[in-house]
């Protein structure tokens, strides 16, 4: 019996035991007394047996599925909102709509205004041309500049020396 267990332990360590043989080992080590030199294996096999008994005690709630679904919808909702916004910008493009609103009467008004403005600018140009001789005053000013030297007769005297 002991020989058999030792042999099984060796196989066990090499990963060669079958499930049946492993059950045999577990059985042996759940006894009250085992061979002293094999004592150390006892807690290991007990640990395996005890651990299989641990259970998932919480209730399974599948409600969270709804929560995640809601989240998913929300994501798509925001995408849809962005799409609608962008579409609306294209549809109600202000520059385009203004062009659509120009009528023939508006066009005539525009032409009239343009002609009137052209007339005004023509007259203005004429006027500026007439006023342009005022430049002469500037040249006169520079010619009069030499009068300053009268203020400095001493300089002239020294210059001549």
């Amino acid at each position, binding site marked *: 019996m002991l020989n058999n267990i030792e042999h099984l332990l060796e196989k066990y360590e090499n990963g060669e035991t079958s499930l049946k043989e492993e059950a045999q080992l577990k059985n042996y080590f759940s006894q009250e007394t085992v061979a002293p030199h094999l004592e150390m294996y006892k*807690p*290991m096999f007990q640990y395996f047996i*005890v651990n299989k008994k*641990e259970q998932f005690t*919480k209730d*399974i709630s599948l409600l*969270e*599925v709804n929560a995640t679904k809601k989240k998913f919808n929300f994501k798509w909702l925001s995408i849809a909102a962005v799409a609608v916004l962008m579409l609306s910008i294209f549809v109600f493009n202000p520059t385009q709509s203004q062009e659509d609103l120009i009528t023939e009467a508006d066009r005539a008004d525009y032409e009239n205004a343009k002609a009137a403005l052209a007339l005004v600018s023509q007259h203005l140009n004429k006027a500026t041309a007439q006023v342009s001789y005022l430049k002469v005053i500037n040249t006169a000013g520079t010619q009069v500049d030499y009068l300053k030297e009268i203020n400095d007769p001493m300089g002239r005297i020294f210059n001549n020396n």
Partner: protein
Amino acid sequence: MTQSEFINIVTPFKDKVFRLAKRLLVSTEEAEDATQEVLIKLWKNKKKIKEYNNIEAFSMTMTKNFCFDKLKSKQAQNLKIVHSNYQDHNVALQKQVELNDSLDWIGKIMEDLPEQQKMVVQLRDIEQYDFKEIAKMLDMNETAVRVTLSRARKTIREKLTKTHNYGVK
């Protein structure tokens, strides 16, 4: 499919999902959340459930993936608390002796195993799945499962021998 029908399908293995999640995430609360999440994902895909020939294996794979994602994000946020950082070494040693006989110590040893080994031990030694099923759940081949399992079992035995000897002395 109604909710009660779904719950009938899920009930036989929901504990296994929970235990695998707890093995990977350690905390009970997180494992409960993970289980809930996995079940909700299943419920969402309830139309496809009939197409899967093994819902249980599929659920276990889902659990594994979910927990891995959880662990990854946790690592990224750097929320992992390493207890040994602020623990007095002598106290830790004393604790080890106290835990020596109890099952908690095995739990500690299991916690230190690499993720893959944890899962294989969980699925084989605790849940008693056969190698073919485990290979399918973890997307490994059977040989790799056996090798991983053997490594894990050896590590556990070595640590046990060490503490056992320590206790005897």
